[in-house]
Each structure stands twice: as C-alpha cells, then as structure tokens.
C-alpha cells in the first residue's frame, strides 16, 4: 500500500456477500495505466460481482477502492463513468427497438446534440477501425455488431479504465483477433483494460498481468505470458485437471439418429433459419456440434428434440423411424431425450419442486402419471433416485429447483434425462456455468451412457469440452452445419475457421470475415 500514484485503480480487501454465498472474499489487486489486466476464473468464481462493484452497480460490504491513489466510493454507474470507467457487458445492455445512435446517446451522461454525437461516433470508429451504421435499429444487427455498439459507447467517454466482461464468448476467432487489435490500440493510449475471461489462450495472447479468482478469493497473480495454459488452469480450478475415462473408440453400432437435409425458417425477429442440416450418429457414439453462440444452436436443439416439429417426417430418423413431424412427447416415447442449454425456465421450472420438475419430462417414460392424474409418490421416488445417483446436493425432492446451485441443478437435469435411459440423448451446453467437479461428473455420465449403446449429440460452445468427450463433430454457422470431422484429426485452426463461416480457405483474411457477417 505504499505506492499511490503508480496505479490507475487499486482494490484492497474487497468483500461482498449474498444470502448464503460469499461472492468476494478479501479480494485485492491493482492495475497500472495502459495495462491489460486479466481477471481469470471459472463461472461462479466471483468475477462479475467484483466488476459490478467497480462499475458501481453494487457496493462492497467491506474493503476499499482507490482510483489514482484516492479512496473512492462508486455510488452508481454514472459516478463510475465520471471517473473514467467504461464497461462492456457480457449480456449487452441494449435497447432492441431503438437505433444505434439512440443506444449510444443513452450511454452518454453529458447532453449532446444528435449531429455532434454522430460525428464523434464516426471519429471513434475511424480511430479504432470499427464499422457500424448509426441509424440501424439494433434488433437487425448481428451479435458482433451489437458488441461494437457497446464498445463505441464506452470509448466515447474516453475511458481510463475499460472493463470487458467475457467479450469473446459470442465472437468468432477472427472477430476476436479484430477485437484484440482494438484493445491493444486503446492500451497504447494509456487506457487500462480489465479483461474478464476464462479462456486461457486469449489471456496469454492479450494480457500483461493476470489475477486469478477461485471461490471468491484471489488464488494467484501472474504474468500470463510466462505461464503455461495448464498452470493457469490448475490455479483456476484448484488442483489437477481431472481426466475423463474414455477409450478411443473406432467401432460403433448402427446409425440410431439420422438427420437428412433438415431445414427450418427462423422464428420471429431473432430466430436463425436452419438450412440443409445433415449428420448421423451411431450407437455408442458421441457427436459434437461446435459453434459460436447464436448461430442456430437453440433452433437446432428444438428441431431435433421435437419442441418445434417440422412437416417433412423423413428429415429426422430415430432408429430408422421417421419422426421429424412428431412432437417432443412422441419422440420422447420413442427414446429421444433432450437437455436444453438454459437451465432456468427451460430445462427446469425454478419455482417448482424437484419432484414436479421430474414430472415435467419423465412422466411418460417413468410412468409418473396415468389416466391424466399425477402419481405423486412415484414422482418423489424417481426424484430421490436421481438425487442420490447423481449426487445432487439438496434438502430433498420437495425443495424448489431454484434453491439449488447452478451445478447441482444441472446435475439434476442431466440425471433426470439420463436415468430415463434414452436411446438418443441430445444435450446442449452440458457444463455451462458448472463447477469443475460437477462438470467432470456430467461428462462421465455422458460417456457412460454412450458405452451402453446410446447415441449422443452434444452441442457446445466450449471447444475443449467437445474435443475431450466426442468421437466426431461438426460446426454450426448461421444455421448451416459443416461436414463431419473426426475428433483427433481436425485442427483447432480448422474448426475456428469453420466457426467463422469460412469453409475450406485457411488463408481467408479479415475482410471476408466481415463480409460473411454483414447481413
């Protein structure tokens, strides 16, 4: 605590608790002017809470924040912006029905005329090489473009500290490269950047310094360029990386799930259309679908599970039976179970008891209802069975799903489907926001189910996860599925290019990425 003026911002002994959780426990670190500082940690490690306190959305219970040597209290985001703190949110804070210009104006605290603002926006975009049409309505823009609005909005305030919360989770590798270039230009002007991520290679590439959080505590500080990804990962997870027991398989059974030329129009303003999707999964095989968020994964899952049936029955075959025109109930009876990406409100009803959540999807296969009436005691015993088999931490089958932690609820949801012993399991983002222990357990359960001869489709944005558990995989981009690749033969670069929509040409340059994403 001796240096004062050397740092742009210093956090000392920041503590923040919520009922039942200590989100930040005695967290301290400091960032120099012009430094790109990584805040590294798993989902739930307390990163978001910490930056919300820096940006004034929440107040710390204890501890001190010093801005350029002076102790401060950030009362609200407006005060943060006044200091010179800018923030780009993970979940964009945009207004869909308004124009880019209006969105940016809303982020400015000073009153400024439309024309002057537009001029300034163009200036900033020129300097940092960002492209945006100020008069477009946000709802018509791609995810990458939306992020650019957030960035421009932050840059217009001439920030001296820019916080980026998981900025790359929605970007292609090529868009990521472009973003990094912008950030480096910014840091060269003396602006500090706090970069939040759990992606190690990005941090190694971009950041000068890293603070690692685990369970709300700082567990390490390092220069990421001096560390290996493995050493940082171990700090982040705490202990050695668990290996999944999975044999390299070469022999599979007959095709159990065949998708042939599946197409579907997008629903509403934001739905992605699926076009000519084909793949097949054999008994015992785990098939991965990679891709950047928002490229049709949700639509694909719902089309495959039967949440949104299609008219042409032959496009999906389950053990040789045409099922594409059947709804999710009929498909479930035929042995297809699914786990959607979003736990809260999709895979599970938060206010319902676990037992009611079991009735939600298992009532037919597990005989939890008959003659239109619910068999509550059967539902409870099935629920208890899932809880004990999958080690779900809860007070019992009567507790509401919302009272479980993310990882435990995910274990319950996955367990609920796997214990119905499906012939085909569809699972999206199986370990999203789940701690390492639960993630390993879920991966193992998936691998075991495949061992028993089920066909499994895993949709994930986490490439490492797919590479670890899948036998074959393909990449989804703007509703189109790439050719099938054998895991172990495909390079990460190749997959990355497919994720950006570049098929076949590994030397594709930035411009063509731009074109691929301009609608």
């Amino acid at each position, binding site marked *: 605590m001796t240096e004062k003026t050397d740092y742009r911002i210093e956090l000392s002994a920041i503590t923040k608790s919520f*009922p*039942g959780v200590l989100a930040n426990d005695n967290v301290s670190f400091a960032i120099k002017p012009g430094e790109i500082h990584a805040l590294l940690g798993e989902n739930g490690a307390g990163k978001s809470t910490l930056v919300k306190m820096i940006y004034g959305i929440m107040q710390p219970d204890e501890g001190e924040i010093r801005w350029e040597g002076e102790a401060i209290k950030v009362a609200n985001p407006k005060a943060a912006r006044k200091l010179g703190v800018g923030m780009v949110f993970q979940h964009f804070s945009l207004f869909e029905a308004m124009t880019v210009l209006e969105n940016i104006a809303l982020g400015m605290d000073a009153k400024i005329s439309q024309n002057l603002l537009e001029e300034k926006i163009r200036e900033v975009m020129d300097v940092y090489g960002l492209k945006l049409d100020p008069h477009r309505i946000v709802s018509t823009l791609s995810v990458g473009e939306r992020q650019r609005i957030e960035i421009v909005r932050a840059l217009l305030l001439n920030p001296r500290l820019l916080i980026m919360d998981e900025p790359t989770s929605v970007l292609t590798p090529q868009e990521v490269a472009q973003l990094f270039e912008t950030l480096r230009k910014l840091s060269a002007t003396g602006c500090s950047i706090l970069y939040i991520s759990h992606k190690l290679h990005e941090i190694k590439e971009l950041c000068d310094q890293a603070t690692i959080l685990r369970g709300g505590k700082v567990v390490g500080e390092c220069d990421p360029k001096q560390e290996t990804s493995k050493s940082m990962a171990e700090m982040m997870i705490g202990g050695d990386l668990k290996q999944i027991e999975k044999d390299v398989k070469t022999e599979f059974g007959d095709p159990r799930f065949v998708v042939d030329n599946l197409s579907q129009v997008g629903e509403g303003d934001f739905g992605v259309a699926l076009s000519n999707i084909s793949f097949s999964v054999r008994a015992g095989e785990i098939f991965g679908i990679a891709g950047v968020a928002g490229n049709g994964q949700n639509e694909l899952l719902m089309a495959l*599970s039967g*949440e949104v049936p299609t008219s042409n029955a032959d496009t999906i075959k389950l053990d040789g039976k045409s099922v594409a025109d059947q*709804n*999710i*109930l009929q498909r*479930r009876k035929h042995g297809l179970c*699914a786990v*959607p990406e*979003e736990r809260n*409100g*999709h*895979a*599970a*009803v*938060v*206010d*319902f008891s676990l037992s*009611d959540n079991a*009735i*939600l*999807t298992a*009532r037919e296969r597990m005989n939890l*209802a008959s003659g*239109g*009436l*619910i068999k509550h005691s059967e539902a409870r015993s099935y629920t208890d069975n899932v809880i004990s088999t999958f080690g779900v931490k809860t007070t019992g089958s009567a*507790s*509401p799903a919302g*009272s479980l932690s993310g990882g435990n609820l995910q274990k319950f949801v996955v367990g609920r489907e796997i214990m119905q012993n499906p012939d085909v399991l569809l699972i999206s983002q199986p370990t999203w926001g789940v701690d390492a222990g639960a993630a390993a357990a879920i991966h193992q359960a998936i691998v075991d189910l495949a061992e028993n001869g089920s066909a499994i489709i895993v949709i994930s944005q986490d490439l490492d996860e797919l590479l670890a558990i899948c036998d074959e995989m393909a990449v989804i981009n703007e509703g189109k599925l790439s050719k099938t690749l054998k895991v172990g033969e495909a390079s990460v670069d190749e997959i990355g290019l497919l994720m950006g929509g570049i098929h076949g040409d590994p030397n594709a340059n930035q411009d063509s990425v731009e074109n691929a994403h301009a609608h």
Partner: protein
Amino acid sequence: MLIELEKRKEPSQTMLYLTPVIAVLATMIVGGILFTLIGHNGFAAVKEIFITPIIDTHKWQDLGIKAAPLILIAVGLSIGFRANVWNIGAEGQYIVGGLAGTGIALLTWELEGWWILPLMCIAGAIGGALYASIPAFLKTKLNVNEILSSLMLTYASIQLLYYLMRGPWKDPEGFNFPQTRLFNDSQILPEIIPGTIVHLGVPLAFIIAIIAWFVMSKSIFGFQIRVVGSAPAAARYGGFSAKRTIWMAMLIGGGFAGLAGIFEAAGPFQQMVPQFPTGYGFTAIIVAFLGRLHPIGIILGGLVLAVSYVGGEIAQTSLGLPNAAAGIFQAMMLFFLLATDILVKYRLKLNIANQAGDAS
C-alpha cells in the same frame, strides 16, 4: 424506513396463507380510520360491513347468493391467472353468458319441461366461453394482449345488453320498460332451502370449486396450467402447447363466468334487465387474488367479499353510506394483500430498533 427486506431462500408457506388474513384485518382497521377521517362513524361502518352480516343469521342466505357467482367466476379466472393468461373481461363473459341463457329462455317461454333449465345453463356457459374465445383467438393468432382485448369486450358487451333490452328482447307486455319478460317456472333455478332465496346455483358453485381444486392439484391438466404460467419455455420442452393452454384457460374462465351469469339471471333476477352487470366479474379478480388462486382459498375469499357486499347494503340503510362504500373496503383488501405479498418471498429485518409498523 429502517426496515430491510431480506430474500427468503424458499417462499414462506405460512405467510402465503397468513397474509390474506392480515389483509382483511388491516382493511378493517385502516378502513375504519379512513371513514372516520372523511367524517363518518368509521368503526360503526366496519362493524356493519364486516360483522353484522356474519352474526345476523338472516343474512346468511344473502351471503350464499352473493358468494356463489364470485366464487364461480374467480375459480375460472384463477386457472387463467395461473397459466399467465390475464383475462380481466369476466364481467363481459358473465353478461354474454347471462344473455345466451336468456335467449334460450325467451325462445322457450311458452314451453315447460325439465330440460329447459339445463339447456339455459349450457347456453350460458357456451356463451361466456365463446365471448372469451375472441381474446383467446387474438392472443394465439396475433399475439394481441388479452388484458386490453378482454377489457374492451366487456364494455362492448354492456352495450349489447342495452341494445337487446331496449330493442328486440323488450317485454312486449312490459309497459315499454327496457327489460325482458319474466322467466317461467321451468326457467328459474329452484330454491334448495325452502323459505330462503338460496337457489341451486349456490351449492353448484361450491361443488365446482372443489372439483377445480382436485383437478388443479392432482391432474396433468393442472400441472400443465402451472408450467405454462411459470415457465413457457419449460412447458414447451415438457410437451405442453402454450396456445392450447391459453385456449383452455380462456374458455374455462369464460365458461365459468357465463355459467355464473345465467345462474344470476335464472336465480335472483328471474329475467334480464339493464342493471344485470353488478361488477361481479371485476370483484372476482379480487376474490381470486385474496384466495391465492387456490379454489379452496377462493371459496373463503368469495365469502369475505360477499360479507362486504351484504354489509355494504346494511350500512347503506342503517348508516346512510353510499352504495360504493363497500368498494373502498374491497379495494383496500386487495391493496393490503398485494402489499403484504412481499412477505411471502422476503422477510422483514429491522435494522435498528425502530417502531415503523405502518403497513402502507
């Protein structure tokens, strides 16, 4: 205020059932004070409105016939509210149901037979359901907000009633009064307790509420209603169609309201008159909330509101309070219930010892 709210880990069941009681008690106290401030004898008003109808056994029959339509409508509405379907046009469905049943009565006015009354009731339920199918159609096909459409239809239905009373359905022997002829003996609900005004519709309303309780708690249909209301995406994933659920919720709500309408026309009124809409369709919304959207709670809520109606009439004659005075108490009950609702999910934490017990 130095009271802080702290989120409970799980909603409190105790508070869920205790808060309606707190709301009624708070209404009696604050209502009494309010009436006193306006210059009336506040506590006499509270006594006449809340106590007299209960201790005066002669008034029990009035309680029954006032509670019945409220309970019937509120049970139907509660199914919709649980499914997140905000049909607030029950008043209109009640009117149209009453009109549909009346239509049958006018067609059969020279006939006699046991079949006429059931036919009128069926027509009433269908009439109400059909009227509710307009917002259901607009909601499922065009995504039109059902709050607005069902409310607008209520006001349109009042005009339909006026039109029929002044025009085509006017009693030809009625000295040009805008009302229908009186129903004949085959067209009115029989008294079930001789010597009282308690008609068959009263026990039926209670029986329907109990059946609804069974269906909502034990059946897949009840489960479906709850899932669609709580988490539409999860409902689709569970294999329940949101559109079908909206339709069913609307038709049940409209059907029950329509049934209440014809019970009212064939019961207390025994004809159709322009004064037929008495706001039961709106008051039933209070009943549904006061009863926690639970059929058994709604029976109790319906009785409480019936007390306030009957008490309002008593106070009108004994204290000279205007008819609408009971509405103040009814609204306050809902205000207090909604205000104390927060105690179900949150607990109060007194930060520093401070007496700030003001409920509003």
